[in-house]
């Protein structure tokens, strides 16, 4: 990845663009009956990832975020624009491998790889005035230091690794308040009641749209496929907030019509899958893609690139800046089911709740090899799901496309076993 390389090849012939194109083509072309409203998102990814178009962004300072725990409302409120840096490209994963040990998380490596190319890294958002790096897992913490070495202004947002205690809550609230002070210094704009209120209203509208989409996935038969929803939530990483919300609202309207018409986006009797674990980020949507290619349908997820990022909403009792900031802090800590915390009871409960609400037949648990915390939680989550009688497929993988054939076989077998179970259960139910 030298400047010469960039000059000689047109952008869309680069490795990153080809990787994205292959994935997007599969996501679009291998399925019939894609919602018309999804065209916005397909087009967005084509332009950003394949054609390398720079995003139209306000001239305001750009603030990069490496985790969902960063209160983006504060960034909007002081007039800056947030962008999520978590990257899903195998191309950047390989570049980032220079920084991290061989067996470490693809997502962290890809993010570092993308940041290597300050100008042309995809998605292209222009110069980053600040990167906010919450101290979550070890790999991200260390990556933060490396970003500093690359020359970025990094704010290390101190994040507790226990969330139950009051001490952690207070610590985190202070950390967020400090962050707000840093942001005000960055933009020179004061954090006022009105600005924060408006910022919160904007994200609330986006979250409301997401929740509507999320709830539509409870429909049986399914009105939308999981691969499309992952694209939608991935777009939230870098898209303009209002444009994204408009597009989601249009999609929701279309899906409602589908639901009313009794439309089925998947195959008849497609096993309903709950997706959890390491976050799928475009172009690494291989696991959701494989599930849906094999005849399953991802009806819900418990990942930080989708549900965990947008589902939970803050509440404010008194609309004064102090309380709004504290409320935001609580909202980014308390419901978080990230595996970096000591206990994972909340995550298990959340999974069971999603299984119940979305009538999921099985769970697919993705762990990026090297992501220790997800790997370590596999045991306890598997146990809880097993006790509840829900089959789980644990998949340890990375961004490399090499294992797709092998994974496809495992997934087909898993889905087949679910179908068999359902048939048997239906038969025994019929007899009874």
């Amino acid at each position, binding site marked *: 990845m030298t400047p010469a390389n960039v000059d000689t090849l047109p952008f869309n012939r680069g490795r990153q663009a080809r990787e994205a194109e292959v994935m997007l083509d599969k996501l679009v072309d291998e399925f019939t009956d894609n919602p018309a409203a999804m065209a916005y998102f397909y087009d967005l990814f084509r332009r950003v990832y394949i054609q390398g178009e720079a995003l139209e962004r306000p001239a305001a300072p750009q603030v990069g975020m490496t985790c969902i725990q960063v209160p983006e409302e504060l960034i909007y409120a002081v007039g800056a624009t947030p962008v999520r840096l978590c990257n899903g490209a195998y191309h950047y994963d390989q570049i980032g491998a220079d920084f991290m040990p061989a067996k470490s998380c693809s997502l962290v490596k890809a993010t570092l790889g993308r940041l290597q190319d300050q100008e042309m890294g995809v998605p292209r958002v222009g110069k980053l005035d600040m990167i906010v790096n919450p101290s979550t897992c070890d790999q991200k913490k260390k990556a933060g230091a490396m970003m500093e070495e690359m020359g970025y202004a990094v704010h290390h947002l101190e994040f507790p690794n226990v969330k139950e205690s009051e001490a952690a809550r207070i610590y985190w609230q202070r950390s967020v308040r400090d962050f707000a002070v840093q942001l005000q210094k960055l933009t020179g704009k004061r954090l006022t009641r009105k600005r924060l209120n408006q910022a919160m209203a904007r994200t609330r509208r986006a979250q409301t749209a997401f929740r509507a989409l999320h709830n539509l996935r409870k429909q049986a038969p399914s009105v939308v496929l999981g691969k499309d929803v992952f694209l939608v939530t991935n777009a939230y990483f870098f898209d303009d907030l209002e444009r994204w919300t408009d597009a989601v609202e249009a999609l929701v309207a279309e899906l409602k019509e589908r639901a009313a018409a009794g439309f089925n986006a998947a195959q008849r009797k497609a096993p309903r899958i709950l997706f959890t674990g390491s976050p799928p980020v475009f172009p690494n949507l291989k696991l959701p893609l494989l599930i849906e290619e094999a005849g399953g349908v991802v009806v819900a997820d418990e990942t930080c690139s989708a549900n965990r990022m947008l589902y939970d909403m*803050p509440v404010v009792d008194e609309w004064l800046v102090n309380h709004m900031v*504290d409320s935001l802090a609580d909202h980014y800590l*308390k*419901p978080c089911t990230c595996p970096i915390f000591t206990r994972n009871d909340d995550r298990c409960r959340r999974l069971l709740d999603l299984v119940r609400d979305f009538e999921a037949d099985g769970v697919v648990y993705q762990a990026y090899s090297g992501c220790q915390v997800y790997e370590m939680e596999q045991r306890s989550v598997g146990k809880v799901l097993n006790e509840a009688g829900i089959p789980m497929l644990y998949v340890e993988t990375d961004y490399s496309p090499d294992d797709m054939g092998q994974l496809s076989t495992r997934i087909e077998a898993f889905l087949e076993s679910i179908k068999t179970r359902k048939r048997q259960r239906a038969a025994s139910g019929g007899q009874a």
Partner: protein
Amino acid sequence: MTSRLRRAVDNVDLQRFRFWFQAAAFVLFVYGGYLAVDLGNSLPMFSCGYNQEGRAGVCYLLPLQHQLSRPWPQLFGWAGIGVLTGFATFFLWFIVLNKGWCGFMCPLGTLQDWLTSLRKRLGIRYSLYGEQAFNRLTWVKFVLLALMFLIPLAIGGGLLSHDWGAPFCQICPGRVILPLFTADPLQLTIDYSSIGTLVLTGLGMFIAGLFLVGAFIKKRFFCFFCPMSALHYLISKPALLKLKKDGDKCTKCGNCFNVCDMEIRAIADDLERKDIMTDDCTLCLKCVAACPEPGALKVEFARINIFQATEEGFLKRMNKGAGHDACKR
């Protein structure tokens, strides 16, 4: 039809509903006496008996303390019947609304909510006790309740003089402040006639001053120490109005705890208990209104679900709440 009603109820703007409900209750209990409303003297909240002109009924703690200070032979004789009937009436009133009496009816509670809105308008942030202080202070109301029984009994037994009569009423800020609403300043005094009255009225006035600042800066400051609240909790099991939690649906997001005037942590953290009303709860139902998880929190009356958390209601209230305050700015 029922589902539409159900939806309308669940979407209610609780803040506004409560404001008007409380205002109406305040007018009823503080000025109802002028309209010859008389609901007896066993009301399970601070409809202060010292507000002689306007009260529409009397807080049960006043007659209770008077009854308990009867001479023991009487108390354990025929007067015991009076104590029991008084308590039975109190109990019957109480079980209807449970602690909803605190969150919706109590004039002193309403007054605190008004002080809170005044502070909000002035843009002053509130204070919280924090977890440690909460755990330390949560016993105070039970101690006050015990004293409220023991002191009158000691009077009846001749161990204390009658000057210590109705000890809780003497230190209750309601006695000093509520009669002021009917332009009755008679309680704003220090009574020098004996040591007992001097101590009690002095404390009463001091606490009244403390109350005004406390309630201004801390939401529902006094309810935390209220012996009525303690008494409620002890007999709340058979109450009809219940606050229920479904731990399976809870994401532990802490929204309910965040809005709780009483800083009750259990509402967010306790996943086991179905009947989630704790000793400090005032059943103001703000937690239900702040919960985005359908059915995670709900209110039942005689086991009939009358109000529950819904996503739609939550969003509606949040947008409205933000709108209200944006206008104010």
